[in-house]
């Protein structure tokens, strides 16, 4: 799903940037009320984010609001603003346990008639969150994906963050597998070295190869490279189109199993071909 391919963080208190939210090429924008906003500006940011959702909503871009953590006094007001603004997705930071998802799902349910349409993503950024990845991923209902937050995670681990990312290999693998098992999206951590475009391209290509659904971004300059990394190649697109054509023809002709280039075309292959074409849109 394209929503997850490039998810760009934007400070919730910067009107100029929020006005451009739809024009930076990202598939989703994460309007941030948490780390990007100083405590004294939380209320102003809330108003601005709600107004962005209602009056300046970017076209063809999924809107995500990152609220403050459940351990802060802000999250209820954040959630209320995001829900009344009509956000597509709520991103819950510091998620360590499915109970935390329950709490915000209930809040959304009671604070909005339309709450059912609002989805949730879990931002996992602690050792406990990673270890509980399966329990969190299988929450079900409105949970559509998990996002890895490697900065807080490595800080908590006492590990040094590197462009190569060896220190987060386990966390990536564990979260990814939990998401795959639960059938939800797994979104890779942002690449924090803003000007290292070569490192970014490598990191994004690696995440795409592992099977991540996409990557979060902290700079608009990263959008293009990450999109390219997650974009299927021309050969893959051609292959996927032929798979779908062959499968459709087989169905029309009432044939069961068919093969293409000596390869059996079965359901997993068709599913993969469809997802390739979807990514290529």
């Amino acid at each position, binding site marked *: 799903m394209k929503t997850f391919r490039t998810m760009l963080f934007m400070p919730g208190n910067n009107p100029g940037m929020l006005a*451009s939210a739809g024009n930076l090429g990202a598939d989703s924008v994460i309007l941030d009320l948490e780390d990007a906003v100083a405590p004294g500006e939380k209320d102003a940011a809330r108003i601005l984010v709600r107004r962005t959702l209602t009056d300046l909503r970017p076209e063809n871009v999924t809107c995500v609001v990152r609220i403050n953590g459940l351990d802060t006094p802000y999250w209820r007001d954040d959630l209320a603003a995001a829900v009344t603004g009509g956000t597509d997705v709520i991103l819950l930071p510091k998620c360590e346990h499915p109970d935390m998802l329950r709490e915000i799902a209930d809040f959304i349910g009671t604070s909005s008639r339309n709450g059912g349409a609002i989805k949730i993503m879990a931002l996992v950024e602690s050792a406990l969150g990673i270890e509980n990845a399966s329990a969190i991923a299988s929450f079900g209902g409105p949970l559509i994906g998990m996002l890895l937050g490697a900065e807080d995670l490595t800080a908590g681990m006492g590990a040094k963050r590197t462009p190569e990312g060896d220190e987060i290999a386990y966390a990536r693998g564990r979260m990814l597998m939990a998401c795959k098992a639960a059938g939800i999206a797994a979104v890779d951590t942002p690449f924090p070295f803003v000007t290292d475009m070569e490192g970014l391209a490598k990191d994004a290509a690696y995440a795409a190869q592992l099977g991540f659904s996409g990557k979060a971004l902290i700079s608009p300059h990263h959008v293009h490279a990450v999109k390219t990394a997650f974009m299927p190649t021309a050969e893959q697109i051609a292959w996927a189109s032929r798979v779908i054509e062959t499968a459709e023809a087989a169905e029309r002709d009432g044939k069961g199993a068919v093969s293409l280039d000596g390869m059996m075309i079965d359901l997993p292959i068709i599913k993969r071909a469809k997802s390739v074409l979807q990514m290529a849109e």
Partner: protein
Amino acid sequence: MNHKFLPDVATALREAGLADNMTLSFHHHMRNGDYVANMVLEAAAQLGVKGLTIAMSSLFPVHEAMIPHIKSGVIAAIDTDYMSGPLAAAISRGVLEKPVMFRSHGGRPRAIGEGSLKIDIAVVAAPCVDAYGNINGVQGPSACGSLGYILPDVEHAAKVVAVTDFVSDEALRHISIPHNRVDHVVCVDRIGDPTGIVSGSISMTRDPLALAIARNAQAVIRASGLLRDGFNYQTGAGGASLAASTFLRDDMRKLGLKGGFLLGGITKYMVEMIEEGLFESIFDVQCFDLSSVRSIRDNAAHQEISADTYANPKQKSCCVDFLDAVLLGASEVDLEFNVNVLTDSNGVIIGGSGGHNDAAAGADLTIIVAPLVRARLPIVVERCTTITTPGKDVDVLVTEQGIAVNPRRTDLIDRLKAAGLPVCTIEELREKALRITGKPRPMEKGDRVVGLVEYRDGTIVDKVYAV
């Protein structure tokens, strides 16, 4: 001692026969670092002449020093292609009785050639002169590269005075202006401030919106079908235009293409492209940075051209007519695709056509790049405050929020849509902008005309009013 060399500017002006009501011409390669125009006018004022017409290819903030000469009657008229800064603001307020004649970079040599702009004395800010009076722009402490904009003046003026701060001991090999066109030479301490002449390096924008616009613009070029071997291209040095040229470079590498020429104001990004072999040559009327100054001196594929060759519509041929695509800016674009690059939304003079309407007329694909909203105002307006480039010469408006194609280019609309680009109508772009900004109250024009806008062919297409 060579009789050409005179001790000071006043003597040179006297020798050249300076008198009341004459036309003095200047060029703008020194840009905002120019000392020469101010120096010459100061000398003219001291000689007591009045009623001069100043024909200068462009005027910059440094030329604020002309305001007192206007007030005292030394300057009675101005003829230019572009003006910005305090002088422009003063003209907008009506400091000069006679309307300024705004031409294009191609219209100016046309007017000079046909005699409608008759030059009595052309003044060359000459970075390097030899003992014969040969001139080039590529040597000396004030090297600015091409001298293209003064070459038509030198050809047609009654007298030519060169002001220099560097006399070469050796006879010049690289000659832009031959000695037989130069009547007098004056040596002064400095002809300009190098930091204002050209910026040491023009840096690539990191503004994500400018990059989004640039990416869209290059996508339009790609989809237009014009990108092929021999592709000729011009772009400005503005944020989005410059960024678009790097996307063009990437495309050309990927597609293995070799372009024809790059044109216009030249930056290091263009120099890198010919050095890499992505284009055959650069035709240069003006250098924008020190890399291009070095390149025009050292690389035979980087050629100096005159404003005549660049854009004069009455020449037997000119470079802009061979352009496949050009990227240009705008302060306003209206619903008929007319473009304003002369005044801001308050009607104050902030620029001028320069090569805008020349390149737009010549190129097969004219792309205007601009943000949809600038300083709280929509870029798309119902009617431009001042029209500098007519909509008939404009094909596409590229903003970060969508791409509007001139409806007469149905072929292009089909191509861009087929390539999946976000094509919409210009009315839709305006609506989109108005949803953000609200409808601005219309500006009230003054009654007095302070400027006439001449299209490159000599037709007056608009007037500029006092504010």
